[in-house]
Every structure is written in C-alpha cells, then in structure tokens.
C-alpha cells in the first residue's frame, strides 16, 4: 500500500503526460502480481466496493471528530477523502501489523458489508499513515482524481512492457481485475487472451472540432450530430452488451436494446429516447433532458420503459456477422450497414441520414438553418476513413452549431472542488423578471463552472469575496453587480426550476466587467429561445 500511496501522490504532483507515463510504467514493472493489477484497476476506476461510499467515510469520522470542525476542514480542503485522511485519529496504542498490501486491502474491502464496514475499515486505517489512508479511501470509493485517464494507463502499461497499445486496449475489456492474464502476456510472453468469442468493447473513433477548416464534400460526408449518448452495441454468441463512450457496460440501464439486437455485430450509434424534440415528429427523438431521466439507473421500471423508450440511431458498423470491418473505408462500411438495416427491428434502430449539399457553403447554410434545438451540429467524415480508435487528425470532424448567448447577472457562488478547492468557481446567475427600474427582480436561470481561464477565475474569486452580501453555508450571495455573457446549446421548459427553464451546457462565454447589471437580459429573452 505504501508504494501505491507514493504513486498516487506522485501522479497528483506530476503534470507532464510523459512524467505520469513513466511513474505508472515504473510502478507496474516493480510491483508483483496481483498488487499491480489491482492498482491498475484502481487508477482506471475499475473497482467498485458497494459497502464503501463517500458517506461511509463521513459517518466514520462523525463518530471521531466534532462535526463543526469536520465541515470547516472539509470545506477548506475540498475533498472528503483527503480531509478524513488528515483527521483520522492515530491509534492510541501503536498497531503491530504492517500496512496492508494493495491485494489485502482489496480483499478486505470486497468482503465488507454496509454493517461490517464501520468496524473493519477502521482496522485497515489504523495500520496506515495519512498518505496511506488517503490512498485507501480513494481506492475504496473510486474517483482517484490523479489526472490519469484509462487510456493513459493503458499507454503506460504498453510502455512498461513494450507491447502494442491497441492490443492492450482490446484485451483489457476481455479481462477483469487484477488482469493476471494481461500481465502474463505482456510481462512474461504468455499467449494472449482469447477474445474472438467475447462481447468486447472496441474503442470509439472520435472527431476533432472543425475550427476554421473547410473540407471538400467530394471527400467528406455530413451527418447530423444528435444530442444523445454515443453507444456501442455488441452481439456475440447470443449475448448483447451496450457500452458507453468510456467503455462502461450500461446494458442493464437499457434492457430493451439487449433483446432488440440478435445478429452478431458491433454497431456504433447515438442512443436517444423517442419523442418529437429532435428531428421532428417522424422518427424523432426527445430532448437530452428526457434521456437524462434514464441514465445511471441499475434497474428500470416498466413505466419508464413505456414512457421513455430508447432507440439507437446508427452511425457505423465495426463488425457484422463475425467480420471485422474496421479496416474498410467508411463508404464500404456504410453500404454494409445500410444492407443490415432491414434485418434490425425499426422499433429500436434507425439509420443516421446523410445530409446532402452541393458544396461546403450550402452545407454551412443548412447547418445554420437547422435551429432544431437539440441537434448539436454536423459531423463530417472522410469517405475513405477506416474506423480507428481515438481522434486521428483529418478523418472525422465535429462542426458544432454556434451557441446561443444571453446576458445574466451573477447571484450566488460556491467553492469548487479538486484543483479549484478554495476558489469560488461555481456560479449561479439570473435574468430579470421585468425591467429592474420598474421593480423587476433577478431569478436564477442556470449554473456554470467553466468557460473562463485560470486568471479570470482568480479575478472572479476576488470579486465574490469582496462583494459578498450573505452566506448560506458554503454558498455566498453576491451584490449582483457582475454580468456574464452565458453561452448554451439550448434551453428547455423545466418544472424542476423556479424559472421554469433549464439550459443545456451553460458556460461563461465572456465576463462583462464593463456592463451594468440592470442591462442584463430579461427572462423573457431566454424564454423566447425555448423550442418545443
């Protein structure tokens, strides 16, 4: 556990990608099985201990630390695990046992129940110092926040043992922690795991933003960029899986899709919920809001299945009938996908349509004209592009619609967490109910915590601190003097908000230090942008 705790801290303080890669690779080479496999799983969020939650940590500390001192400390540090690692009382008598190994900690955490955790977790904690306790909490609750993506960890693995990263990626999903077969293959030259007959996730092909580039439509094809979640459906040997963009298995959340795909295939598409919000009444989809109700659920009620049925708008085919199509050009894959469509139930699948245009200028007009709220913009795909993992320059572009803008007034601010702990970085802003000179008041319309630079954040933090008129726990109410130009993708009617409006992807577009608050927009201006 000490080496793992050192690795976690070193990763936190190391900013360069190469530095992080070297740290992980060194650790993987130097650490024995199965510790290194468990550590790798922890770094990539591959562990889940249902008995240990962030609330478990809070409850454990509540019995040992004054609640006021706890919350003041938590507020300052900005991280529950770190605060708890500091405040955990050192045992009165020194504990004889050595610190647990990573494997021992994992075995012990996995065996804990919601009841036993209150007695057993302290026993592990008493064997560790503050640094070790921090690493244990992070390991137990997931979310390491060490700036290591799953992809980076896989590259580090490939570097550590001098193997191909694409192979690592492919085998990875066939195996479970502690990945003994993966280490046996990479470190000791054993045969690779047999993946042919497994419903595996294949890494998604992603797009770059188009920025100022123009493309020739002889080489590129355009499709709408739908506002749902990107999914991959895999069917092998009678088994179907649905994977999210990050490779998480979300099959249980969308059981209707499991039954709908019965042909061996690997398909790439946008998961949407039936409705008329996007793309009109025919074959239309509901807004992202409707889809959001269905995300993150482990079980789904019949009512929910009936009210918000999911379907997939297919973009691409990675494999059909056992043939891997990824090396083929896009137009050949598209032809095979079109040929497959009649064999798929249209209740759950349709095909992403090609947007036809004579030239790029005309395409730009079509993109601008489509004020359909939920369509995010266009995708541009090279007609001869193979299906490759990640973002490869020049193959696929996303061409997002220009955002909508509205001027709002900063009302409340809250401290951020992580790198932004101690900074007031989460902002609630409002619009006027009527002309402020005629007695109009500000009503909150949204919340944003991005879109500004680190320098601007410092200035905003100072503004909040110097213009606080009220405090409600961690929230500060400001004097409502600062105007934000807020950018957002769309706005919807919502019963959950007092304003009756919910913005999609709001972010701070510009800080209008110069603009007086009474010149900010009335709420009517925002309401006029709602499209139902």
């Amino acid at each position, binding site marked *: 556990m000490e080496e793992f705790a050192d690795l976690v*801290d070193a990763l*936190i*303080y*190391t*900013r360069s990608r190469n530095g992080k890669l070297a740290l992980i690779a060194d650790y993987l080479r130097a650490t024995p099985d199965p510790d290194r496999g468990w550590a790798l799983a922890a770094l990539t969020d591959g562990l889940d201990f249902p008995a240990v939650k962030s609330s478990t940590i809070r409850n454990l500390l509540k019995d040992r*630390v*004054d609640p*006021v*001192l706890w919350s*003041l*400390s938590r507020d*300052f*540090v*900005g*991280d529950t695990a*770190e*605060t708890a690692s*500091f*405040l955990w009382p050192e045992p009165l008598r020194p504990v004889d046992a050595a610190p647990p190994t990573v494997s021992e900690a994992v075995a012990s955490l996995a065996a804990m129940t919601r009841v036993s955790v209150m007695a057993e977790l302290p026993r592990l904690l008493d064997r560790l110092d503050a640094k070790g306790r921090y690493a244990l909490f992070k390991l137990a609750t997931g979310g390491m926040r060490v700036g290591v993506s799953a992809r980076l960890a896989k590259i580090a693995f490939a570097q550590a043992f001098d193997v191909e990263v694409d192979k690592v990626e492919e085998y990875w999903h066939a195996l479970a922690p502690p990945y003994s077969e993966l280490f046996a293959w990479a470190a000791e030259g054993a045969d690779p795991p047999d993946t042919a007959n497994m419903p595996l996730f294949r890494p998604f092909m992603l797009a770059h933003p188009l920025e100022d580039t123009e493309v020739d439509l002889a080489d590129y094809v355009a499709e709408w960029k739908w506002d749902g979640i990107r999914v991959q459906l895999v069917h092998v040997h009678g088994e179907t899986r649905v994977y999210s963009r990050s490779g998480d298995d979300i099959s249980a959340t969308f059981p209707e899709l499991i039954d709908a795909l019965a042909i061996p295939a690997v398909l790439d598409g946008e998961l949407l919920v039936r409705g008329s919000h996007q793309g009109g009444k025919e074959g239309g989809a509901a807004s992202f809001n409707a889809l959001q109700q269905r995300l993150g659920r482990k079980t789904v009620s019949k009512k929910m299945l009936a009210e918000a049925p999911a379907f997939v708008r297919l973009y691409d085919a990675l494999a059909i009938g056992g043939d891997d199509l990824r090396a083929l050009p896009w137009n050949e894959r598209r032809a095979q996908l079109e040929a497959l469509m009649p064999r798929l139930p249209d209740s759950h699948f349709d095909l992403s349509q090609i947007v036809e245009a004579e030239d790029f200028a005309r395409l730009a007009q079509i993109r601008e004209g489509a004020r359909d709220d939920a369509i995010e913009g266009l995708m541009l795909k090279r007609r001869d592009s193979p299906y490759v993992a990640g973002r490869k320059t020049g193959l696929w572009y996303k061409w997002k619609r220009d955002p909508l803008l509205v001027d709002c007034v900063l009302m409340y601010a809250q401290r951020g967490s*992580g*790198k*932004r*702990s*101690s*900074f007031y970085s989460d902002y609630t802003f409002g619009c006027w109910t009527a002309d402020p000179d005629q007695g109009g008041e500000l009503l909150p319309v949204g919340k944003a915590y991005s879109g500004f630079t680190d320098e601007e954040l410092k200035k905003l933090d100072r503004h909040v601190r110097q213009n606080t008129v009220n405090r409600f726990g961690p929230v500060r109410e400001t004097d409502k003097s600062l105007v934000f130009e807020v950018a957002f993708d769309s706005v919807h009617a919502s019963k959950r908000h007092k304003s009756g409006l919910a913005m999609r992807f709001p972010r701070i577009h510009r800080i209008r230090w110069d603009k007086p608050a009474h010149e900010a927009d009335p709420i009517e201006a925002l309401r006029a942008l709602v499209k139902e």
Partner: protein
Amino acid sequence: MSAPHWIQPHPQGIYVAPADCWVDPSVAVERALVTHGHADHARGGHGETLATPETLAIMDLRYNTRAGAVPVAYGETLRLAGSVDATYLPAGHVLGSAQILLEHAGERVVITGDYKRRPDPTCAPFELAPCDIFITEATFGLPVFTHPPIAEEIAKLLSALAANPEACVLVGAYALGKAQRVIAELRAAGHHDPIYLHGAMERMCRLYEELGVPLGELRLVADHTKEEMRGAIIICPPSALNDRWSRRLPDPITAMASGWMRVRQRARQRNVELPLVISDHADWHELTRTVEEVNPRETWITHGREEALLRWHELHQRKARALALVGYEDEDD
C-alpha cells in the same frame, strides 16, 4: 470578569488606549509596537516604531525607517505612557519576531503576532507567558494542519536533488524567514554546496548573516550559467516559481516550502511538483497546546482560520472571540 477596556481591537490593529499606541497597525500611526518584520505586520511611515533591533533592521531594509526607531531587546520591559508596561518576548516565527506582553492595572495581555513552537536555527525560541488575555494568530487554525518534522521535508528535498543530478530544484520560499530557515536547515543536514538565490532574496539573506545567522555559500542566479546550476538548489520568492524568470534554470523541479502544501490541491494550484510542508506558523496542535499552557481567561484571535479555533474553545469551555483584523495575509506562508 469582562474584557479590559484599555486594550481595543480595531480593524486596522490593536489600540492600547492609556499609552496611545497601536500594535501592528495596518495604517501609519504616531506610535507603533511591531511584533515582526513581515510586511502585513510591519508597515512604514509610523512616527515612532518600537520593535526588536532585528525587526528594526529588517524594516529599515524595506522602508528606510531609521527615524523614530526605538529598539527593545527580548526580555526588556519598557514603561509606556499611562502606566502600561511592554515586554518583548521571542515568538519563534522569524528573526527578531516577538510577542508583546502588555501589563496594566494588574492585567496581563499577550499579543503573539505570528509564532511557532518548533525549533528554528535562525531565531530565538518561543517563550511561554501566562496571561489574562491571549491575542493569538490562527493562520493554520484547522485540525487538518499538522506540520511534519522539518528534517523529513529537508530529506525529501535532498533526495529529489540527488535523484536528478542534471536538473535543479527550485524552492519557492517567503523572502523573510522561510528562505533563511530552509537554507540553515539544509546546512544542518550536511548540504554544503553553494545555494543559488533569486535577486529578491539577496539583501535579506545578507542581513541575516550580518545579524549572526550563518547561511554558507550563497550565489546569485543572475551571475551564473545554466550549466553551473545543474544539481543545485535555487531559492526564489513563491511569485517567481511559475514566472518567466525560471526559464533560465536547468530543468527546474518546482518545490515550495509552505504550510499550505499539506493540502494536495493547494500544491497543484501552484503547479508545485515537490511540496515541502515547512511553516513558520503554529500548526493546529501547537495553537491549541499553547492556549492550554498559557491558560488565559480569554483568547482573542487576530487572523487566519478563526472559526475552527473558536469552535475548539467552545468545545473546551474556553472563552474566545475573533477580531477580524484587516490586512493580515497568509497566502504565501
């Protein structure tokens, strides 16, 4: 017994009414009693400044305040106007730092300024003074702050240096006190190589040496080439850590010596790769232990994380209040 009327906290400092003087005022006044030389406690422009000779020398370096300087040695008692006696006692914070003990009408008030209880080769150790009213700082007044033994942090610094012989370690440290303490502790740990300084550090280091704190061989970064500085320790003010200035250094590993480095994200916010938890302030345990040992009738808290220290007093049935003095900064310690 109620709080004494003769000692009055104001946002701009503590006013000693019978003697018509201020302690660490944030504005220029006729007569100031100054605890130590940090800019937020020692400001220029006072008519008369009563401080230790070391603090006066530091203030003179910064504001040219020779006029009106009244030196007070540690342990010496001065009779001020209105029958107020002032005694300066070591605070262990930086060279020359003092707590000020004020006695009037049978009451004793101690104003700590900033202080710490840990050993520091560059200044006299904190002296405990029992009193009725204890006016303390609370910069690190949260139970998460436990400063580790400095030897551990110095060892971390030296092992990073040894592991990267082609690079250098750039340590951000407050120019008054922290920088000299880090250098003195490095020397005590057996590191006798030349240590390189940012230009802003030079005069204060020279002054420390003149006042009897040996710091070994010091060189200025500006006088040396990149090649010469490989494998060396370089000390700069925290503000220069991520400045263009550091581009002239050979692959610097960014370190910072500060009590805030205890919190991981604080170190990350500063782009610090090697956090060194070294503070010249009392940590939570020192703060609470000191209150217990001084055992005052009442504690007043000048600045810092006063809410948690107030709560501690409440939990221990002790009387305390926060003064909310303005202008005291603590971000760089």
